[in-house]
């Protein structure tokens, strides 16, 4: 029997919906790939044709939310924001979309997106990271802080970003209010580092 592209897409959607429901109801750690397959009405082996692991499946949910967040960000931009404002809005629109996944986003990030994670293991993770960093690079450039910032600066940004995500995923304050303060600090730090990078450093040459 031939499986059409449409049927494949429907199966993929059933899997992600089932995973979303189970992660929310049972928790990420308590949910197995067998549970997800069963909920979706497919064999466990079939699920692996679509996603190599539970983490990759979760990452696709996270990536879809971040994609939606990016659209929200673009829609909210007025065009006269400072770099700090743009960056905070860029991240917060993503976090708001990620809210349903807050309980397990830490595990996903650790596996797929942390600085220790290898690239090439999860397409969604690689794409999400690249797109996010490209947008940050564009934003910094549009605020007159040079073209593509060097890889060191982007690594710093990514580390801060994941730090904020980690803080947010465990933030017990009301409405995650403390995350806003941490985010504000982190981005001011980042922007300050960009500005520092534009100042000339005096070097003593030893002859």
């Amino acid at each position: 029997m031939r499986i059409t592209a449409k049927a494949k897409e429907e199966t993929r959607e059933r899997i992600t919906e089932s995973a979303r429901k189970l992660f929310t109801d049972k928790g990420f750690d308590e949910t197995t790939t067998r549970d997800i397959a069963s909920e979706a009405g497919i064999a466990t082996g079939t699920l692996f044709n679509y996603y190599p692991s539970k983490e990759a499946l979760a990452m696709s949910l996270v990536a879809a939310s971040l994609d939606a967040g990016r659209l929200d960000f673009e829609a909210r931009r007025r065009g006269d924001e400072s770099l700090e404002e743009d960056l905070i809005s860029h991240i917060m629109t993503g976090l708001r979309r990620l809210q349903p996944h807050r309980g397990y986003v830490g595990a996903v990030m650790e596996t797929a997106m942390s600085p220790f994670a290898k690239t090439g293991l999860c397409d969604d993770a690689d794409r999400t990271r690249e797109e996010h960093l490209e947008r940050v690079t564009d934003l910094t450039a549009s605020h007159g802080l040079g073209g593509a910032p060097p890889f060191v600066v982007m690594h710093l940004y990514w580390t801060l970003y994941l730090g904020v995500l980690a803080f947010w995923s465990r933030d017990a304050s009301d409405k995650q209010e403390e995350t806003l303060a941490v985010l504000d600090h982190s981005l001011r730090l980042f922007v300050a580092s960009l500005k520092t990078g534009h100042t000339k450093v005096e070097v003593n040459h030893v002859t």
Partner: protein
Amino acid sequence: MSPEIGELVAALPDGFDEEKAPDEALQTLLSSLANKPVPVGRLTRFWALGSLKAKIALAYMAWWLRSGYVSGDKRAATLNETHLKSAIKLLGTMSYLRGSIMKIGQTLANYPDVVPDEFVDTLSALHFEAPPMHFSLLREQVRNELGRDPEEIFDEFETKAFAAASLGQVHRARLKTGQEVAVKIQYPNIARTIRDDFKNFNALLLPMRLTKDWDNFRAQGEDIFETLELETDYVNEAECLKAAREAFNEDDGVVVPEVFEEFSSGRVLTMEFIEGKHVDEFMATNPPQEVRDRHGHQIFMAISRLYYGLKIVYADPHPGNFYFMEDGRLGLIDFGCCYRFTDETWKYCANVERASHGPIDSEAMDAALLYSVDLTDEAQMGEERLGLLRDYCTWMWEPMQEDAPFDFGDPEYLRRGMQLYGDMIRKRYTRSQPINTWLARSFVGARAMAYRLRAKFNLKAILDTETSVK
């Protein structure tokens, strides 16, 4: 004796030749606040406090050393220069540490004759000109609190703040009904910052813990902390605003803004926008004496109405909270820092008043003063302290002794009061019931406003009316 007044007097620069070393005196100026991000971690804040202390102490030490080699006018000029530098440094750090300690800065700015002009100029800027938090952060805070972006809630929302509040900032906006409003938005996580501040100060004060007045001092500190923490709850402030608004009628000439509850929460407060001038701007128009007198009267009438009618101490009468309106009315805003009387504190204040109204009843006064310093034994009080406290009370009640206008613009009157504070602080008479902190803020703050207005009015008549209304 209020710790804030203690801080104020200790900060006086002319104390160099007295028993306090300059760095010790300036330690009390270790304030913080404002608009750069709040360092969330306690250690970070502690580091910043320590760093400022070192900088200001060094500036004054430098002046002290240099002053040995100069004389006369040059010496005065150098002192001004040092004050200015310190004020700027103080402001710099305040800009970094927004939070509860902004209150100290505001209190200092309220006493134009007591602190150097440069401090007043620089600190005055805190009321209205602190740089704003950026809009994206505010928008997220509003969304957290009200569930929607400001652009969705309001017909129009100014992205730039028009005023800095002690715990956040205020933006102008227009409701979809067309109503002009002021939206006060709190910096995220400020309540935790206040808790951290309090821990830091406790740590700084640890060397004092073996002194005889430690328990009393700690009780005062805890009371300040509790009231400041209450200030982070805008729901509480909204309730005070509503109660106060109902306490005034049209003839009173006092306006308290209406609260729009649908657009308010624990961290966001949407109020009617009040249009008017602050005291400096108002005085710059050279208003006639009778207009200044009327505004002085309104300020004291309003504070007395809240006191006797609602049993609330309006404990934050700094210039930023008063608007002098075009039509002659007084706008009274910001009810975050209000102290509510308990039965016990109300009884104490009533006793002081009974002893002070008309001819002073010395015996009743002494009994009230004993309670006011949290002592039960007259021997512990000592003649000298009792004498100073009597003088202080007499000074405080002096404007009510005659049924006639009192000249609050008389610098000599204010100076005498400050001298009494100074004497009490220098003699370490700091024991006090916590309520006195708020009474002193309210009474002295209102007097400072009347002084700035150079107003004359009959305070006794105001109190007679307000107590009979009660």
